[in-house]
Every structure is written in C-alpha cells, then in structure tokens.
C-alpha cells in the first residue's frame, strides 16, 4: 500500500493530523505539476484545475484500487489545496489594487455575477467557511465544483451521491452563499 493510500485510509479513520498531512502533500504536488505544465506549455493553452488535480491523483495514488471514500478524501483535500492557492492569490491582487490607490469599487450585491474573479473568490471563501460549519456536505460540493472545476456529474460521483441529490444541494448552496455574501457586504457598509 502506497504512502498516500495509507494516509487516506487513516483519514477515513478520522485522523485529523493525517488529513492535514495529505493537504500539505497535495498542495505541494499541485504547485509542482503546475510549474511543470507552465514551463512546457504551448501558447494558448490554459491550465484547468480539473486536469491538475487528476494528474496529482495519478502521480500520488496511481492506478491501484482505491475505495470511493478514499477518493473522496483525496479530492476534498485537492479542493482545499486549490482553494488556498487561489485565495492567497486573490488576496495579493486585492492588496495590490488597494495599495496602488486605484479606484476600487466595493463588491456590490447586484454585481455579484460580474464580480472580478479575485473579489468573488474572497467573498466566496469567507462565506464558504461558514457554510462548512452548517452544512459540510454542501460546502464540499461547492469546493469540488468551484475550486476543482468538477462538473455536477463528477462531483456527484466523487461524493457518492445521486446526481439529483447533488443538484439540489447545489441549488441550495448557491442561494445560501449568495445570501451570506449579501450579509457580509451589508456588514461592511454599516458605519
């Protein structure tokens, strides 16, 4: 049994420390793969999160038989790792924008759909933190779709739920997050 597979099965057993170890390993691996891809990249190619994560899976776990629960843990870790990478980047961009003194519109509720990517990522990240406490399954689904770029089908398979269930969860999670971001924004506006 490979090191990673071992880790995964220990996470299944509820070992939080192992979960953090996995996260650190996946995080490092994702960055490594991305650097390699960017170095050898043909012009015009874009870096898709799903491809990155699947490559990390192949490299770290390989083609051995892996149980669904283990796979789910891996992809959740990958989603969390991707989230950290993207949120860090969004924070840097945000800081640069503010520091430069450029006119910076606060994210308005009605502009949510057209929000600049980094503003949206930061807002979603904050709201997601709360959703994870109330409904971890819904939060997990959002992470798989938003940070890993999985389709609804892929996410449902990974989570071992029927597609219809995943769709309902998604509908709920979207409305929940939007509602929460709205609350976050009105908190900002209060004098």
């Amino acid at each position, binding site marked *: 049994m490979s090191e990673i597979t071992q880790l995964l099965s220990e996470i299944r057993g509820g070992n939080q420390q192992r979960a953090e170890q996995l996260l650190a390993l996946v995080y490092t691996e994702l960055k490594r793969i991305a*650097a390699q891809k*960017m170095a050898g990249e043909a012009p015009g190619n874009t*870096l*898709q999160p799903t491809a990155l994560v699947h490559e990390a899976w192949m490299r770290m776990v390989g083609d051995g038989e892996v149980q669904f629960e283990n796979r789910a843990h891996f992809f959740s870790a990958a989603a969390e790792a991707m989230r950290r990478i993207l949120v860090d*980047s*969004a924070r840097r961009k945000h800081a640069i924008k503010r520091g430069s003194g450029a006119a910076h519109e606060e994210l308005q509720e009605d502009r949510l759909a057209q929000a600049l*990517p980094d503003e949206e990522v930061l807002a979603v990240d904050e709201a997601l933190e709360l959703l994870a406490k109330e409904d971890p399954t819904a939060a997990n689904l959002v992470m798989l*779709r938003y940070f890993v770029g999985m389709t609804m089908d892929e996410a449902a398979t990974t989570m071992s739920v029927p597609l219809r269930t995943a769709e309902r969860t998604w509908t709920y999670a979207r*409305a929940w997050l939007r509602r929460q971001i709205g609350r976050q924004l009105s908190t900002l506006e209060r004098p």
Partner: protein
Amino acid sequence: MTGEREIFLEALEQPSAEARAIFIERATAGDPRLREAVEALLANHQPDRFLEEGAAGLLRESLGAAGRLTSQEEQIGDSVGRYKLLEKIGEGGFGVVYRAEQQEPVRRQVAVKVIKLGMDTKSIVARFEAERQALALMDHPSIARVFDGGATAAGAIARRRHSRSRIQPHLRD
C-alpha cells in the same frame, strides 16, 4: 421540524408563485425567522453564472506566480480581462499590441496594448497613463480613442478601437 433547506427546495418545486406563497406560509407557520430565512434564500436563487464558472480563471496566474518571469507574457488565445488575444500586430518600446476580441458588453474587434510591468514599473505606467490621457483628449477619426484602462497581473491595457485600414501611427515606435 423541517429546516430552511428542505422548505426552500420544496418551495422551488411549487407550480406557481401563488402555490409557493401558500406552501411557505404553511411550512413556516409560527416561525417568522424561519420564514424570513426561506424568503431570503428564494430571493438569492438566481439563474446567473454565480459559482458556475468556477475559479479556474485565476488559476493560471496564481499557480504561475512563483518565480515566473518570461512566462508571464500573454499568449495568443489568452483572455486578458474581457479581451481575447487573437494575433500580435506590433511591438512598441514597452509593450506588445494585439488584435483582440472584446466579449462584453458587445462583441467586436479591438487593438489591445499590453505593457510589460516587469520591465520598468513606475515610469512605464506613468508614461502610459500620460499617453492614455493625451489620446483621450484627441478627437480625430484616424486616432483611436481610448475607452478604458485597466491592469492585469502581467501588464496594463489600453483598449483602442481597431482600425482595419492601418495601424495607428503613434503605435509605430
């Protein structure tokens, strides 16, 4: 007791706004906070692209941020802001000009000049800003108007209306 999630989802399945109102009334009877929570969820249920496209767009920039110098260049096919770069049409003293396609709010071809911020940040941006302001003041048919400016991670853009007849003279450095 059913929570907001179940009530929200079932409310969405009601055949009409009227049926929905009746359903919510019944499902949240005696609990105004729950009712308010459900109403808020419904208000935030919108058929737009929120969350649908994922955060993939940021990925390229963020993963490449560490130790990337030359690969920070824009490539054909890349999207820079709302512009998709189609072909390189010129190179100035401090930037590259591309023919690009604007996606929003209307689809049309424009010329986009991308400045390499890595080269000489402050003075280049200042010079570019001065140029943008000067252009904005000019009102001559053969001089492209600058509509907006913006900064990407890699450089600054001035969008100019693409002239089919020739490259604008001031672009030929």
